[in-house]
């Protein structure tokens, strides 16, 4: 395949000028309805066509009974909801109209057993012959927010962002995008690869590497047919963009029979893990951690070193966070003397005087923004974890909910508390930007009370408010490992 054709095919998949929904349906429970609905309902700006055997009109789209009746060159993506038996003639007809990419939801292929595998191979061969990039079959759809394209039969349509997703499980795509909706840290492209008969997870990751609007590639992987090719594809991306992976089926069950000791120890999970670490990918333990790590890569600068400072308004949190830092690849930086002296000038003597910087309730109106700024700006500090955001607003919440609000001066103090938490969250983002260093904010209020002005303002700043310090440390650890992988290879390759 030429690079030009490949570029044209991927453009057709993710930035189509027009989309045909083949097998469109009037029945709201059918794929052929849901797909048309989702494309029409989420602001896709290209032309939308629909075909089925009955004709008529669905959701305002006139339905053609034959692809041949559609105008030439107006659609370059077909979203296939027809039965497997119809798909070969469908692809031929679409190719004649200028279609360059197909997303096939139809089941009845390899996953069905019997003749399914042969039918799948024929479809792959045909798509290749016709110059059509085929995703699926048996997939749940694709999303491309730069094109406002929601061509999928599942929910949700995520907010736009820099994370691009590839998955061998359609429900994993949904799970990732649900986190996108929850956190506001959005998605660029997403593909449920289905049987991945032609377009594989590795192909998508490699293309995300070239895609100028993708910042991070995030993938769920089960089986891989050619591990070496997958390694090469991941390795083509990691020098310039992070790749975050969740691997299913990586338990040591799949041990192989071998004469040598080394061979018997080479389980699929161990070899995959080693290969991906060598490729500079980040392996996450599950969907939640994977999204948090990807969201961190998408929104925080990479740390230049491991030296982490924890800034907290209460002692216990700092202790637990320090433990998490010790258990990671990060380093709890002993507080430099000049930084200690600067903080001393702003806090009463009961503060911790070391890292974690426990302010011990000694904050006045401006203390937190000032201390965050001092810590982040210090040349020996590479990263900051900030704990305690939202406490004042939590107090305000109970004052606001009680029977005495807004009298007795409560309205004023509630407004003050909430304003302070907004300031603190804004300060965390501002000092990160001014210093070029990651500053991660963690509080359980991010999930327990997302409307709290603290976490709500972190979200407005376009960053993730981590639900616990441990999870913030895990995300920071992944960033430092990636940065260190680069550092170890500086000068070795591009």
């Amino acid at each position, binding site marked *: 395949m030429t690079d030009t054709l490949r570029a044209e095919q991927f453009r057709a998949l993710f930035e189509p000028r027009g989309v045909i929904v083949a097998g469109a349906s009037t029945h709201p429970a059918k794929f052929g309805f849901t797909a048309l609905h989702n494309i029409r309902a989420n602001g896709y700006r290209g032309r939308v066509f629909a075909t089925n055997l009955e004709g008529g009109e669905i959701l305002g789209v006139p339905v053609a009974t034959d692809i041949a009746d559609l105008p030439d060159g107006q659609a370059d993506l077909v979203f296939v909801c027809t039965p497997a038996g119809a798909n070969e003639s469908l692809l031929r007809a679409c190719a004649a109209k200028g279609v360059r990419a197909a997303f096939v939801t139809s089941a009845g292929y390899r996953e069905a057993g019997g003749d399914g595998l042969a039918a799948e191979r024929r479809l792959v061969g045909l798509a290749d012959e016709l110059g059509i990039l085929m995703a699926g079959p048996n997939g749940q759809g694709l999303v491309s927010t730069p094109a406002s394209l929601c061509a999928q039969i599942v929910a949700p349509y995520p907010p736009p962002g820099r994370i691009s997703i590839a998955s061998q499980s359609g429900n994993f795509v949904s799970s990732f995008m649900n986190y996108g909706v929850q956190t506001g840290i959005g998605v660029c492209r997403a593909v449920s690869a289905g049987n991945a008969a032609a377009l594989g997870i590795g192909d998508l990751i490699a293309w995300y590497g070239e895609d100028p609007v993708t910042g991070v590639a995030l993938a769920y992987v089960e089986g891989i047919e050619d591990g070496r090719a997958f*390694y090469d594809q991941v390795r083509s991306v990691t020098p310039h963009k992070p790749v975050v992976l969740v691997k299913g089926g990586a338990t040591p069950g799949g041990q192989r029979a071998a004469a*040598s000791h*080394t061979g018997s*120890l*080479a389980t699929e999970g161990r070899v995959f893990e*080693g290969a991906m670490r060598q490729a500079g990918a980040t392996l996450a333990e599950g969907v939640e951690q994977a999204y948090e790590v990807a969201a961190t890569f998408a929104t925080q600068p990479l740390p230049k070193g491991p030296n982490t400072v924890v800034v907290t308004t209460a002692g216990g949190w700092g202790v637990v966070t320090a433990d998490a830092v010790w258990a990671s690849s990060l380093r709890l930086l002993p507080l430099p003397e000049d930084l200690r002296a600067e903080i001393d000038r702003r806090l009463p003597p009961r503060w911790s005087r070391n890292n974690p910087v426990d302010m011990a309730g000694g904050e006045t109106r401006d203390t937190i923004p000032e201390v965050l700024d001092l810590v982040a700006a210090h040349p020996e500090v590479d990263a900051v974890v900030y704990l305690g955001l939202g406490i004042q607003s939590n107090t305000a919440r109970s004052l606001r909910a009680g029977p005495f609000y807004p009298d007795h001066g409560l309205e004023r103090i509630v407004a003050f508390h909430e304003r302070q938490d907004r300031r603190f969250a804004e300060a965390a983002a501002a000092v990160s930007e001014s210093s070029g260093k990651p500053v991660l904010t963690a509080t359980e209020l991010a999930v327990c009370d997302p409307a709290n002005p603290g976490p709500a303002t972190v979200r407005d700043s376009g960053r993730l408010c981590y639900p616990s310090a441990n999870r913030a440390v895990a995300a920071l650890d992944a960033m430092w490992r990636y940065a260190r992988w680069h550092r*170890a290879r500086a000068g070795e390759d591009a």
Partner: protein
Amino acid sequence: MPTLSEADSKALLARHGVPVPAEALAASPAESAVAAARIGFPVVAKLCGAGLAHKTERGLVRLNLRDEAAVADAAAALLAAATPDDGDVGVLVGPMVSGLRELIAGLVRDPQFGPCVMLGVGGVLTEALGDVVFRLVPLTRADAAEMIDDLGTQGLLGPLRGEPAVDRERLVDVLVGLAAVAAAEPGIRSIDLNPLIVSAGTPVAVDALVETA
């Protein structure tokens, strides 16, 4: 699976930069004793042949031999224990390497990922501990250093009960050497360096088994 003799395995590894102990292959008890005197006591003597993949199970390894007479006696007994199935055999005489820590390293051709280098902790305990890491060939020194960093039992690599820390650069040499063998010899299916004894901080492949296609 056909295997190379221990002596041939080590010679192959040494050609590709894997550090192995200085050993001698002797044909008779008298030659064994001369070789032992040159190497310096105590020594270890093993029956060596292409068909002898599992010597310990058959009692074909004699450790801690302290003088020429002991070496000659051991060599005679080893040669007498050989069966016609063992083919050409000799006695491999090498220095007695001792250390508190045993590692394992090796090479395998994975059906998905092709040639992979392995490093693990524990020698005979490796399976039970499960502290094993893999990387693909080709292997850079940075890759090899990260393999060592990825071992879970980092405490075992530092100074231990009077022994110095494991020399990471020498361990990197072993791993990069295994990768070099894989790249140069496509006919090799697997290699076991087990155990890789850490002696005065240096990893030494006291046994080596190369399996060919």
